[in-house]
């Protein structure tokens, strides 16, 4: 693939690993009426890495994404991006600072073509203002050519080239997921938040999606945070995983360790030993486990987890 062709001019140099974190959450909280969706959540994301975020449904993963991406205002706590508090900054401003998100349910521009879906993304398009369109069409056309080339490269990379003239509403669910990733490729993002990129994607496409994410990380230095229920997918992608339960960080660390953590099993399965294999083997049971997760997580929080659920009973302190 020709991903490297872009990286020279567009990707910011990836800071050395172990440098100051790119994103830091400090006691981040979000309440919806009486429900606390995210409860004093604290963790850090290092630049240049792919970090996984897992947890049963209702654990607050997407809510955290929405706050980081500026779609929701935090009820309390801070979101530090590059050391600066970005809590409550509107989404379109954060985009220009390099934060790009994709959506759990694909948000395509349905009655635009696939190519147009990507061409609509880049910033600094003089043609998005009317006076240049009417008065200096040449400058507009020049930038438009650049944007089009970049979009065409992205479509080839995503293997959506053949569908470029199709209306996006006619794509399959999996193809729409790829298009979501493509939107992130149309800028030079510093932080890409992928919300369940693999949901509803068939295994072949999923394997390709994984290669694409790894390549974008390796070749262009994108920092990824990935929400996903497919444990094998996460394991093969991320060095570090953050586990959330009931809006708080339950634990974090490498996937192998997290997988064996009894608190994690507890959160997903309510401590049912017979199903222990589920988190291990991933895909098929993953959905079931997460469905059971919310109730199980609640049980853990109420002391059912006992000594094992230390992190869950006191979510304020994030485990090491």
């Amino acid at each position, binding site marked *: 693939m020709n991903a490297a062709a872009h990286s020279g001019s567009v990707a910011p140099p990836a800071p050395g690993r172990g440098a100051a974190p790119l994103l830091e959450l400090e006691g981040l909280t979000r309440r919806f009426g009486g429900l606390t969706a995210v409860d004093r959540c604290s963790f850090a994301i290092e630049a240049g890495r792919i970090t996984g975020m897992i947890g049963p449904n209702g654990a607050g993963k997407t809510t955290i994404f929405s706050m980081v991406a500026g779609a929701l205002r935090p009820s309390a706590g801070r979101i530090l991006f590059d050391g600066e508090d970005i809590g409550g900054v509107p989404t379109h401003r954060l985009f220009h600072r390099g934060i790009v*998100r994709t959506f759990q349910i694909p948000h395509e521009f349905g009655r635009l073509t696939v190519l147009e879906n990507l061409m609509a993304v880049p910033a600094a398009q003089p043609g998005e203002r009317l006076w240049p369109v009417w008065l200096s069409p040449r400058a507009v056309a020049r930038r438009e050519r650049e944007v089009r080339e970049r979009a065409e490269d992205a479509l080839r990379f995503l293997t959506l080239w053949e569908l470029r003239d199709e209306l996006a509403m*006619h794509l399959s669910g999996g193809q729409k997921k790829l298009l979501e990733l493509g939107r992130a490729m149309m800028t030079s993002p510093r932080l890409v938040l992928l919300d369940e990129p693999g949901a509803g994607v068939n295994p072949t496409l999923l394997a390709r999606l994984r290669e694409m994410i790894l390549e974008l990380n390796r070749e262009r230095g994108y920092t990824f945070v990935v929400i996903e229920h497919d444990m094998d997918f996460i394991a093969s992608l991320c060095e570090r995983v953050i586990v959330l339960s009931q809006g708080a960080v339950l634990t974090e660390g490498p996937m192998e360790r997290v997988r064996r953590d009894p608190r994690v099993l507890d959160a997903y399965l309510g401590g049912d030993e017979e199903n222990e294999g589920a988190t291990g083997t991933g895909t098929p049971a993953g959905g079931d486990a997460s469905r059971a997760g919310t109730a199980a997580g609640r049980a853990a929080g109420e002391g059912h987890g006992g000594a094992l659920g230390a992190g869950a009973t006191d979510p304020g302190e994030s485990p090491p």
Partner: protein
Amino acid sequence: MEQQLYGIFLYGVFLLTMGGIYAVLTLGLNIQWGFTGLFNAGVAGFFAIGAYTTAIVTSAASERHLGGYGLPVAAGLVAAMVASAVIAWGVGRICIRLRADYLAIATLGIAEIFRLVLKNEVWATNGPRGISLIPKPFEHLPEPWNQVGMLLLVFAVVAVLYVLLERARRSPWGRVMAAIRENEAAARAAGKDVERLRIEAFVLGAALMGLGGALMAHHIKFIEPNAAEPVSATFLVWVMLVIGGAANNRGAVFGAILIWTIWSTAEILSARLPPEWAVKSAYLRIFLVGLALQIILQRFPGGIFRERRFRTAPSSSTREQPP
């Protein structure tokens, strides 16, 4: 015989002039609804603002209403666009975040408020009796050249607007507006300042509605508050756009002329009926337009001219098929 033909010719000129003025209004609504997905149910309000602005600015002095500035018609047209745009900007600042259905309710209400203000602020607008003797371009020319001159002026305006808006539609500006229409959250996530762009589309559309209102005032030489009735202004313009094809400028112009022709000829036919029928048949044309809407949308779900998107390869069929 010759006189009859001449009458038909004059009627044709009148019909096309009105159709052209409606085309200006429909092109304005197309920016808001077709391009950007803004449900403006207050077309009549911006129409009225434009009509009254030019009436006040261009008419001769009168004790009955504000005015006496006697500016040329061109200045009146510009003033009408500016007035509509400024008011649309104020309305947009407050309402533009509303979802489509709520925006419709809000704009409908605002247009009614405008109409009531125009009806009741008698010192400025002469109230329900309206403003008459509005100057008409080319009126010093002999018949029929004065009428033909007006027709040519209206069509020149439509042609200029068509070229500008067609260029805008095909540009990244048109693309970003369509993106907002299709998925607001994704447009935001792509760094677009959705509020600012929506206001921009709203203001530009309203400016054209004001221009349409001003052209109408000069054409009829008279304006009164009932010209801003929701049925004759808002409803008719919506039908024109939906039938012609939203998001398609050609459709907007075509729909305006088609529907105005149906509307106008229905009036003539009903006028020929015996008087006891004529009153009832006034409602018949609303029925006729509704029927046309039904039939055309059954056969052409996206309007007669559908939205056309940029394609890298020319397609053999204009209809999109799912893969």
